[in-house]
């Protein structure tokens, strides 16, 4: 599974983006990603879902999995709890990847 992750906004507006690949993750993390995607069902989400909330985190996430690709534009408070969990996980992975590069 490949994920293109971009986060902006929030009070801090420290942008964060990374191209993630489950094949490059530790096995336990790759399993965790698979579970979170199954629960959050990003392929069934509307492509845009935004709340009118100041300082809300803004996400653009493209997921490629099993021959399918889906891009969702979502703000944090508009996301379901399960999608929030996936977004939090992707944010951690994106930061880890950046840190390894820096």
């Amino acid at each position, binding site marked *: 599974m490949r994920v293109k992750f971009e986060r902006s*906004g929030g*009070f801090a507006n420290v942008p964060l983006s990374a191209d993630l690949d489950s094949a490059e993750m530790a096995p336990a993390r790759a399993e965790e990603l698979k579970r979170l995607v199954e629960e959050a069902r990003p392929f069934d989400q509307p492509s845009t879902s935004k709340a009118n*909330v100041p300082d809300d985190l*803004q996400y653009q996430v493209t997921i490629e999995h099993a021959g399918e690709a889906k891009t969702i534009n979502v703000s944090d408070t508009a996301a379901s709890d399960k999608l929030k969990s996936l977004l939090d996980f992707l944010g951690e992975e994106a930061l880890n990847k950046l840190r390894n590069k820096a």
Partner: protein
Amino acid sequence: MCRQLSHSALCFIIPSHIQEQIARNGNAKQRENAFQNLTVSSRLRGQREILTTFAVLATTPTGTKRRTIYDAKNGMTLPGKLVRGEGAPKSADTSVNEAYDGSGKTYDFYLNNFQRNSIDDRGMRLDSTVHYRKNFNNAFWNGQQMVYGDGDGQIFQRFTKSIDVIGHELTHGVTQYEAALVYQDQPGALNEHFSDVFGSLLKQFVKQQTAKQADWLIGEGLFAPAIQGVALRSMKAPGTAYNDPLLGRDPQPAHMKNFVKTTSDSGGVHINSGIPNKAFYEVAVALGGKAWERAGKIWYRTLIDKIQPLTNFAECAGMTYEVAGTLYGQGSAEQKAVKAGWAIVGIPVGAPLAKAAGER
């Protein structure tokens, strides 16, 4: 809208005539909820007159601070468990006390300087939730309450640590009630700007600093020790708050010629706010003394009396100039300082307000 937002006040399931009955006859909690629903829904429908009917029923006497702090215990459910109410003793939890004290100082700041009775000017309860989610790197106003994350400890520390963050978030509430600035592009950057202005003025008020003494930083001390930066934003020198190998550098411009066109961050609302922020700083320093007394008053009256949902930078500049003239006289030192401040960031005041397409 109802599916996207978890808060019932933004969902108009109960017809307004029933809400009115509850506002008149319900118990205190029911009345508060009903009044809040009526307030939000009638504003959205553009029926502001309904507010005056119920203001008498629902207004809390001026000077009555009502704070409630909740603990989400690192979960996602809002508001979470009630941990400290108004007048209750200090908690053992630093975040709880910071949210309590910071929202109290914000209330005092608005009351003492602008005779404003809380966020809605009707004594609205100040609700805050701390410990929202795990390692959550954000703080926000969700339309009804403040929400604070703990930070991940690697980039950010807890978001209650810096009092201007608390003033910033509560001011989003004030803006929501008074101006309803759309959170996109230039109006969104103005929404951010007003929150930074009153967040910084709150900190200056608490420290009793003059404009010259103040650091004009937003979110000072929020970064974890490993990050190379003093704060998230600088109103005095936008673009200089941080420069870190991991995070990159502070992207804020200080002049219109560096205005950033972007689709991320709701059209750069936290980026281009650097331009009006710098203008405000210049006005405050030119006038000298305590910035909330004159510069702050001009900006406050502009927000309350003039700003519209789609106001852009040039229009906002013209409004502050007009307000300065009304408050201090045409051609006064205050009005001249306002004009000069906007000129420094490349926004001429008094020029025709015609603007290129897409500038909003």
